[in-house]
């Protein structure tokens, strides 16, 4: 176990090192801090002097070490656009993204577990087949398209007049296929509760929650089919195992077997895969936040790209890299703890 721990943690450090080298290379290759600092009129000699003073003429290794040293002390430079430390800018935008991810995760957990379990227990039922069909289609729909369709349906609203409206049933059918709209599709609303530090929460006001609905549903829609399929597959495998058959032979009730005994062992792989997927959600938050103009880190990153705000891009890379590495390492460690038979990768058995 100790060897496993040491190996995983040292690997995490190695990955973080590689990320920092890439980030440094981007900063070095793209950003010319001099151009941001001085105007056109400054002579070449003066430029050279500033360059020397900033240490831009030092060897690469020295420059990297300085970059890494500053990063370890929480200093990733100042954003060109916000003229503030980049980490401060990210800290301001992070709560919005976290709340979006929390909202989406809640939807995923509360929908995927019942649906997946149901589809595993009754694989032949038409409802199961319907859910599996929907999830196949769902995987093929990009997240931004789901978001756009949701906006059209529930924010703008759709009025249908396919049926003759002079008859009662025609009007009823028209109303049935029409949608109200009215749900907010832009930003987080203006009633946010201040929690602590830079955390402004939308969870405690009506408008805040309303603003969360469409973005979280969109973000959840990309992961939901994956989780339903995973839970169904795992659960079906568990239901085939000997101990479930034994429990049946003992005469335990179906509910007790399914939900107490089988579900417990289903959730183990689901939780580990889920941990990794939450990290992957970061990429999808960029898309979701763009559609809904959600003021989180994803939108901030995209704006930083259009503004060529190199320090902010680099800081985002480092922070996101850190989040990925920490979640992946934790998930691996937890999995190693719960399931001691896990093999060390890269070692001969």
């Amino acid at each position, binding site marked *: 176990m100790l060897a496993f721990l040491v190996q995983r943690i040292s*690997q995490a450090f190695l*990955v973080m090192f*590689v990320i920092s080298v890439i980030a440094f290379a*981007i900063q070095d*290759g*793209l950003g010319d801090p001099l151009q941001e600092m001085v105007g056109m009129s400054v002579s070449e000699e003066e430029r050279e002097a500033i360059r020397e003073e900033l240490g831009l003429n030092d060897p690469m290794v020295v420059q990297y070490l300085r970059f890494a040293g500053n990063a370890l002390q929480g200093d990733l430079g100042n954003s060109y656009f916000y003229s503030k430390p980049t980490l401060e800018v990210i800290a301001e935008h992070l709560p919005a993204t976290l709340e979006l991810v929390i909202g989406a995760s809640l939807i995923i957990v509360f929908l995927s577990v019942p649906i997946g379990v149901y589809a595993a227990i009754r694989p032949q039922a038409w409802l199961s087949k319907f859910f599996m069909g929907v999830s*196949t*289609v769902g*995987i*093929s*729909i*990009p*997240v*931004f*398209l789901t978001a*756009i*369709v949701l*906006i*059209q349906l529930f924010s*703008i609203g759709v009025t249908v007049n396919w049926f003759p409206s002079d008859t009662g049933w025609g009007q009823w059918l028209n109303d049935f296929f029409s949608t109200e709209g009215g749900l907010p599709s832009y930003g987080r609303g203006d009633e946010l509760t201040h929690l602590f530090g830079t955390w402004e929460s939308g969870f405690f006001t009506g408008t805040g929650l309303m603003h969360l609905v469409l973005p979280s549903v969109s973000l959840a829609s990309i992961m939901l089919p994956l989780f339903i399929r995973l839970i169904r597959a795992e659960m079906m495998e568990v239901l085939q195992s000997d101990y479930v058959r034994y429990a049946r032979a003992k005469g335990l009730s179906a509910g007790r077997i399914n939900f107490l005994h089988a579900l417990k062992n289903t959730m183990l792989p689901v939780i580990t895969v889920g941990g*990794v997927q939450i*990290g*992957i959600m*970061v*990429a*999808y938050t*960029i*898309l979701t936040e*763009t*559609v809904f103009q959600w003021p989180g880190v994803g939108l901030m*990153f*995209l704006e930083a*790209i*259009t503004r*060529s705000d*190199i320090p902010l*891009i680099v800081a985002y*890379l480092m922070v*996101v*890299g850190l989040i*990925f590495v920490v979640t*992946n390492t934790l998930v691996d460690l937890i999995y190693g703890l719960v399931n001691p038979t896990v093999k060390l990768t*890269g070692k001969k058995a």
Partner: protein
Amino acid sequence: MTTATVSRWDRFRESFFWYSFKRDKVAIVSFSVLLLMVLAAVFAPLLAPADPYDLALINIMNSELPPVGLSGADPAFPLGTDAQGRDLLSTILYGTRVSLMIGFGAVVLQAFLGILFGLLAGYLGGKVDAVLMRIADVQLSFSTLMVAIIVGAVFKASFGNLMFGEIAIYMLIFIIGVAEWPQIARTVRASVLAEKKKEYVDAAKVMGFGTRRIMFRHILPNTLSPIFVIATVQIANAIISEAALSFLGLGMPETQPSLGSLIKSGFDYIQSGSWWITLIPGLVLVVLVLVINLLGDWLRDVMNPRLYKG
């Protein structure tokens, strides 16, 4: 020469592959739809009523016309027009062409990288294997889309908007190909590990063939069927990634739109009620990706390799 092709055709007609295709309605429908879309995309210059790249033909007065069937439609534009007055049907045909081109190109690149690295890792083992698979793991844990977004962002920042727009097709093929190679490399490596233990490899070694010859002439042909399956699914993934990048503004420019950039340019007008500019290309994209995914599922069932499905 002729006899050889005839017998091959006969062999194909009696194969399990053709047999199961004939019996699977979903596969037949998906394949027909895909074939139709590919043909429409290939012959877009002949089929499209207008040339969306020709600025002289565009009339801004025709902008935001709805599709036929809605009030205010012009029969000259069956699917309506976009915000610049381009015929939506023509832009969609050309856009599908661009999306498919990037999808195929990216998969060819990732298949090349994936097969090469997968073979090396699986056959040579040891340090080569450890290093290559560690890189693949790290890249996969970051999600291919994230890697593509970051590489795209860096390219865009270093080339500048104009330059990036001109070479966007090649950039996107490169970005998506490099971001997704681990998927194929892992599959290839897994099959190579299984193949390597078989007797024919031992026989080839005894006969004194070189490592390169054994890898490419003996093992590679036996790993092709899982590669084929995963490559199909990867085309769908590449098309989605391209659409996502274009939607973020890191992909095709509006002057030479793909399906993704059509959706993006239409999204700005959805609040004004012109839903067709964004939703019709969106529907085309979903259908395209869906039929490719369904075909991939069917292929996997037929060939039934033990696949890593990410």
